[in-house]
């Protein structure tokens, strides 16, 4: 089976700021991998390279065996921040159906699209909220709606950018339970700050700090993390990130 994600000798820079130099990464199909690393180390850049939103200066990126622009149609993507206008007039159903875009170039969604959207809403535990206004949902419910939007694409790979950054701890636990469930049938790649919870569910930890190192979750020790974050520790005051190596 082809790997879900392959980076071969990838270099990327924002102007003068070199992010990756000859980075390599392979994530096998079926894995639950979590991406960790200090801010500015390249986590989000890695995701953007995988999604074809950025192009590498050198090297090759493949997702589900194809170039990102083609492979991403089978990716369910959950962006980091709610990018939308908080007053945007859309129902939960409207938002979930966005996961079906790209199948038709004109006109309304098909009955099949709607059935898939309802199915996805059921899966995230919001089957009765389809006609509710997205803007009036709680943070956790909005999050689950956006996960349903990602699932609605019928993905083989889920790509989540800090999925639990804006939800409370109860919602976070529910979220990881759902991820564990979904991992039975799809590969999951998630950027996360919270190593505590992730280490219980993830099979791989991908450490990103200008280079990319993959560890099996079981072998991850405090020393490894110390290594990754070491450069940051003296200069950065982002407590949220720095607390974890000492856990």
């Amino acid at each position: 089976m082809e790997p879900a994600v392959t980076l071969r000798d990838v270099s990327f820079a924002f102007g003068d700021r070199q992010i990756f130099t000859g980075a390599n990464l392979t994530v096998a199909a079926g894995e639950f991998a979590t991406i960790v690393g200090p801010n500015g180390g390249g986590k989000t850049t890695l995701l953007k390279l995988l999604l074809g939103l950025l192009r590498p200066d050198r090297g090759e990126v493949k997702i589900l065996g194809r170039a990102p622009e083609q492979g991403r149609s089978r990716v369910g993507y959950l962006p980091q921040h709610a990018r939308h206008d908080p007053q945007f007039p859309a129902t939960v159903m409207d938002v979930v159906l966005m996961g079906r875009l790209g199948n038709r170039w004109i006109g309304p969604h098909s009955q099949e699209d709607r059935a898939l959207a309802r199915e996805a809403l059921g899966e995230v535990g919001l089957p009765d909220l389809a006609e509710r206004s997205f803007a009036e949902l709680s943070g956790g419910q909005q999050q689950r709606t956006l996960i349903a939007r990602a699932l609605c694409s019928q993905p083989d790979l889920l790509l989540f950018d800090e999925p639990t950054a804006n939800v409370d701890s109860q919602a976070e636990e529910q979220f990881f339970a759902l991820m564990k469930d979904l991992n039975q049938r799809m590969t999951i790649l998630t950027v996360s700050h919270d190593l505590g919870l992730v280490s219980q569910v993830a099979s791989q930890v991908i450490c990103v700090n200008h280079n990319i190192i993959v560890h099996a979750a079981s072998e991850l020790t405090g020393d490894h993390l110390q290594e990754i974050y070491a450069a940051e520790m003296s200069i950065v005051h982002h407590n949220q990130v720095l607390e974890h190596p000492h856990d």
Partner: protein
Amino acid sequence: MTEFLQALANPAIPFLRYALLAGILSSLAFGTVGTYVVVRRISYLAGAIAHCVLGGIGAALYLQNAAGWTWLEPLHGALFASVLAALAIGWVSLRARQREDTVIGAMWAVGMAAGLIFLAKTPGYIDPMSYLFGNILLISSADLWLIAGLDLLVVAVAILFYNKFLAVCFDDVFARVRGIRVEFYYMLLLGLISLTVVLLVSVVGIVMVIALLTLPAAMAGHFSRRLWQMMAIGTVICMLLTSAGLAVSYVHDLPTGGTIIILAGLAYLGVVTFGQGRWLRRNGGRGLRRRRPAE
């Protein structure tokens, strides 16, 4: 009010009927496209496109009178300048992210400046007032056909690509990952805005375009849970405002464009202050504004 209705029925003053019809017809485009402008938060871009229109009108009048291009109408110049400005502004906002507001502000002013210079150099005296502040009473039956045509085009595109525009306005990164050509739809949206702006210029004039493009849609947003509802309600509000503005301005002998905008501003203020609360109570507290967990 009776006075206005009698005047409407009077066969000797067809321009009043044309004006009423123009306001009602073009409200379709204002409500639809205005909704996209409001939710995508690009009223500033719409303002810049509108002001560039004066450059086109000035150039057309100059070419018509000084260069002998007698077939060229100001409206042709307006359409040309408006579409050109939309393309240029779209390109700037997509490519040159750093100083987007500076560049767009400059185009806003340069478009107007070009128009004023063309008008000054055009033989004979041309009063820019009607272009700046609207000339709905000068609309002819031929203009009405053009408005209806533009209307049809704008509304058809806005509806056919509704799902795409919805996704691009809501979350453009996600739309891109789903394989939507985000830049294309953004440019198409600016194209629709530019056509709508040309319609607006004949109703309320260049300077007041932004108000009628955004206020009805913004009011509608208070009563809508979905984007198409916002468009429909915005269209109805806009029809009411243009018609009421025309009536009030006729009865009290006021400039029509200014009257419509003042009414729009007052209505908006009313909706923000009072309407929201009353509507909320009637709907059991399910307003858009109030963010309440939905368990």
